[in-house]
């Protein structure tokens, strides 16, 4: 197996100060950026901090910015990183949007606080046989949102949080979560007012960076945020629909009858 020596330029530091430091790693076939970081830990800098768990793109722990692009380190192959580095060293930095802790680790607790604002699942009563009748075609939508691995790359790249530091906006991840609940056929919760006010959906100007970086390929903007925006319009900006809803009720009957 042929190996190649490559320079990784990694951000080292804490909340007060930091610097970029170069490390040489040996690249073998199929290696990903996380392997390179592990190699540095094992041979050069055992105190290099980074989060990781599954190394298979399923847990969403190893988010970072590789050559300026928000990515999972475990799903970025070194050959690709070498390409996007365009001849220079491979740049590995922590996510910019969150307060820095150490090296590649950031404080993502804001996300957990946002999560608490969302009304949890409110199940409809079950049928006489103790079951819901829910069909696959009805849950395809909700299942897409439930693929989310909470890597927070969407939160990191969202310019409302990243550039405007506007944390009244809950961020794309929580739009996706709210959408998964709202569009669940057996959910009876109502999160529309919450989306408009506490979760700040109006801050989103649908510029789609969240969708671009999602490692799970969730169509965050088209399938979650825009449909939710339309639902907010239903209740708050569309007098015709609002009137219709006043007369006929907000939600379809909760318990599928057939």
């Amino acid at each position, binding site marked *: 197996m042929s190996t190649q020596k490559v320079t990784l330029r990694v951000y080292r530091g804490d909340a007060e100060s930091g610097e970029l430091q170069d490390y040489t790693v040996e690249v073998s076939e*199929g290696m990903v950026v996380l392997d390179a970081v592990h190699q540095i830990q094992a041979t050069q800098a055992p105190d290099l901090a980074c989060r990781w768990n599954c190394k298979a793109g399923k847990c969403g722990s190893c988010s970072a910015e590789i050559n300026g692009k928000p990515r999972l380190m475990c*799903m970025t192959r070194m050959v690709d990183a070498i390409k996007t580095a365009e001849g220079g060293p491979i740049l590995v930095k922590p996510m910019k949007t969150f307060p820095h802790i150490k090296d590649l680790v950031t404080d993502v607790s804001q996300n957990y606080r946002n999560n608490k604002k969302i009304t949890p699942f409110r199940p409809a009563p079950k049928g006489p046989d103790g079951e819901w009748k829910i069909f696959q075609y009805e849950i395809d939508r909700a299942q897409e949102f439930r693929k989310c691995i909470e890597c927070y790359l969407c939160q990191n790249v969202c310019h409302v949080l990243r550039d405007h530091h506007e944390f009244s906006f809950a961020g794309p991840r929580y739009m996706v979560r709210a959408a998964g609940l709202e569009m669940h056929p057996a959910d009876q919760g109502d999160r529309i007012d919450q989306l408009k006010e506490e979760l700040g959906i109006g801050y989103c100007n649908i510029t789609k960076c969240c969708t671009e970086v999602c490692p799970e390929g969730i169509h965050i903007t088209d399938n979650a945020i825009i449909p939710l925006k339309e639902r907010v319009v239903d209740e708050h900006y569309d007098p015709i629909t609002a009137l219709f809803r006043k007369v006929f009720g907000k939600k379809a009957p909760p318990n599928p009858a057939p």
Partner: protein
Amino acid sequence: MSLPYETHEYDVLVIGAGGAGLRAAVEAAESGVKTGLVCKSLLGKAHTVMAEGGMAAALANVDTRDNWKVHFRDTMRGGKFLNNWRMAQIHAQEAPDRVRELENWGAVFDRTPDGKILQRNFGGHKYPRLAHVGDRTGLEMIRTLQDRTVEKKINVHMECTIYRLLKTDHAITGAVGYWRESGRPIVFRAKAVVLATGGIGRCFRVTSNSWEYTGDGHALAYLAGADLIDMEFMQFHPTGMVWPPSVRGILVTEGVRGEGGVLKNNKGERFMFKSIPDLYKADTADNEAEADRWLAGDKTARRVPELLTRDHVARCIVREVKEGRGSPHGGVFLDIASRRSADYIKKKLPSMYHQFKELGGIDITKEPMEVGPTAHYIMGGVRVDAETQMATIPGLFAAGEVAGGLHGANRLGGNSLSDLLVFGRRAGLGASSYAKGMKDIPQTDDGQVERIVKEMYEPFDRPSAENAFTVTSDLQTTMEANVGIARVQNELEKALQDIASLKERAKKVSVVGDCRYNPGWHQVLDLNNLLICAEALTMAALSRKESRGGHMRIDFPDSVGEEGKWNNVLRQGGEGQMVLEKQPLPEMPTELHALAHDEKAPQ
């Protein structure tokens, strides 16, 4: 408490926030006791997210012939009758309710055409039994439980590692750990502690397990004086990725075979037809035509041999590779491309498609995958009471992979997620009723806390000598070589010697940098746990002179009737040495015995 450490008090402290830990915490909190949850990673990142195939429960949605008795029988047969029968019974009886409950909490399972929870076929399960969500069932489960934890306002201490349990002579009083972020110590005082820390896969080089799987719970319990049971039974999942090298070991779900994927050697033969164990002859097709009929839904046909139990499939793969019929990179071929349409594969196995595409550059809808065995699951663990999940120390509970007994010598795929829910709940209940029986939060011994904290930071004072990553790597090398899937006396003895010398080296491992988020230091502490687990595994493996389930001895290739009547129990002896004791299996009631040994499935 007079010590200057951050201290928290709980009725029930749950260590680990995977499926079992979250379920235990939810149950404890719902029963009204003050509950705290500690986890090494961020909430929602636990190893449960990697579970792919599904959770086994006899809902009988797809095949109405299914019921708890068949599930019980399948579990006992899969475990080669070494299981704790009562746990297997409780598990089979309660799993359907746990699945429905999860749905009620917001989990969105795949559906049958008539709108019920869909179930898929899996190895060793007679009927389609696994409730699933594509190939990301574990993620669905952890997210649902995580949301429930948030809803119940349970206090979660994230990125906090427990280093030692606190106890008096007779009972648990709490735990000491450190914040990964700041490196500062944290003390918990608790009436009851639930261990839900998962497994020990990081003892091996090729493993499907994440970094967290360093056997913390096994070691915590062992060091506190609790019994470990069945530690020789390590499950090697037959299908892990084998190429490229950096992803070797990453899991390829059994769901691929459940959805129709077949195993082939380099001659293109479906080699699983070559040896079907006697125990499964009545249930398994012996020709391709019948296997194909079964896959197409013919209920009179027998099952495909690819879905035999994991221990057997893994052994067959090892045989094919050893006899020169393996794939170019030392595995065998797993082919679904020629069996199912590209759309079907992408719909039912999206993560697999993605994983091979991204990491291996392989399109599984067009070409076969290369797969080989990977260390996956430890059947053994903390010895617990079947009803309450209490360990042999009062106040200590264990659930999930860290607990032993349910799976016997080999776990069936899908029985882990249901195990987490069934026994997570029971451990939560057990711990909460134990806590309710106590008036006050117990006092902890200041001297004990001081000693533990001092010990925790001691590696910083060591002169620079050994590197924790190197020692861990050496341990993995020796375990892989000597205590792997095929074992033999002299290699096991060699491994024990290696472990003894690695223990000495581990004492000299030093730390670079300070205590803030320092992986080097964390590795030093985790290494000690790994060494305890490796030693337990090797000792138990030496003691069992037969092949059974996940334990395969080249020098004793057969299952011996007499050997199937006892469990290996390990505990810490008076001088700190590990002692092993053989204990007879608990007596199974005759009607369950008949059920488990029934050739045909019970109605």
